[in-house]
């Protein structure tokens, strides 16, 4: 009887472990995974190009985040970028990654909170980082202007957000000139 109980417990543990491994390696949903961006583009050229755009695609946004974190983006396709960000938790695996869709403020805020290690307040501690509360947290910290999580960002806005994130990551604070005063 005891041996049977032990066997059942062992099997349950194996099934649970297999299930958890399966969850962590769940394939991300990517649309336009083969979309590419200009090769060998440095951050000065990337920011300059984005500053003239009225919207920012998820492909461009992921490149910007990778440049901010790694100094460069060596990915060749959007799928590579999405998988790289999802592997580090910078982008959520449950997102539907679409290369050509405009990035939303919620996703940008989520990624910035992750790379800047912004843990937020009570709600974010209880529920974890969500797009809604990441937006609110960045607005509270005067890193992001007004807007809803689902609204898109323009190129200049995205450049400004990445610039603030760059300074915050290095210094832990924002200079007065960069704050978004409501």
């Amino acid at each position: 009887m005891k041996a049977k109980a032990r066997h059942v417990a062992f099997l349950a543990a194996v099934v649970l472990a297999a299930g958890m491994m399966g969850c962590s390696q769940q394939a991300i949903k990517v649309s336009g995974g083969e979309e590419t961006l200009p090769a060998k583009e440095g951050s000065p050229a990337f920011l300059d190009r984005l500053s003239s755009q009225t919207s920012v695609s998820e492909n461009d946004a992921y490149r910007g985040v990778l440049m901010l974190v790694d100094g460069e983006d060596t990915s060749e396709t959007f799928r590579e970028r999405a998988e790289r960000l999802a592997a580090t938790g910078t982008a959520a695996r449950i997102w539907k990654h679409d290369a050509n869709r405009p990035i939303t403020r919620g996703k940008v805020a989520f990624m910035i909170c992750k790379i800047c290690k912004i843990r937020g307040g009570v709600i974010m501690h209880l529920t974890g980082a969500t797009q809604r509360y990441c937006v609110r947290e960045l607005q509270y910290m005067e890193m992001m202007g007004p807007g809803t999580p689902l609204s898109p960002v323009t190129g200049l806005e995205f450049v400004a957000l990445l610039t603030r994130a760059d300074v915050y990551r290095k210094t832990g604070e924002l200079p007065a000139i960069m704050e978004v005063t409501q």
Partner: protein
Amino acid sequence: MREQLLIGLVILAVAASAPAGSEGAAKAADKPTTAPATTAPAAPAAGASLKVTVVSVSGPAQKMLAGDEKAKWQALKAGEALDEMTVIRTGFGAKVVLKFEDRAVVTVNNATKVGLSELRKDGDRASANIGLKYGTVRASVEGRQGNNDFRVSTPRAVLSIKGSDTEVGANVDSPKVAHTYTGRFSMTKQMVGLGLKPQIKQMNLGGGQTGSSSFIPPVILTSTKRASQARITNFGIPPADVKTMVNHTTGQRGSGTPSITTGNVIVPTPPGPTLPPGEPGFP
């Protein structure tokens, strides 16, 4: 009678052929590409050229000559001299320090794009125009060396820095334009009131104060587009960038809001009221 009619017609004809004020300016604002972007940089009209040298470069930074169609972006190196109409762009974690002879030191911070124009030195008077498309620069102007006219132009305001240490920002979603550490500067900013006409407000700020332009909701800006009398000045950056700055000044877009056009109006800086210390720079 006929003679009077003739005289009246002649007067009307002369008045009609004179360049229109607002319409001409508005048309010029709508067609910034007519700016002489394809021609080589013009020689200084009067006085010598103010020399600008690169003191130090850290991180990714590039330069290009704005007036030259065939020019390509090149890596910026310490020690080199920069010409008028040079455009500089920096990436993440970059910092470029420029020296304007013995008059000013300008630090171009990370993720910034600036253009240098109107570099002049006439006797003891030195002048320069720095156009800022995005990012931040810190200008430390030595007021004791002579008469200085250093202007930093952003989409929201033009700052005239006489002798001070000032940080100027052109972050599109922030109304903050400048923060001064020491000394004084004057700022001409474009405000939009409920009258839907651009109003120019001149402010003098002292050390430790921050000046902001008004953060304008898109609705009002959309209406002022038709009444705008703005004209685009040459910031020293390519016309394509000027057009982007004009069309996306606030950089924010609500759902369904069309592109917003404003211009940067530069007016002579009249002496304005001095704000008492401790007062916020933005009324």
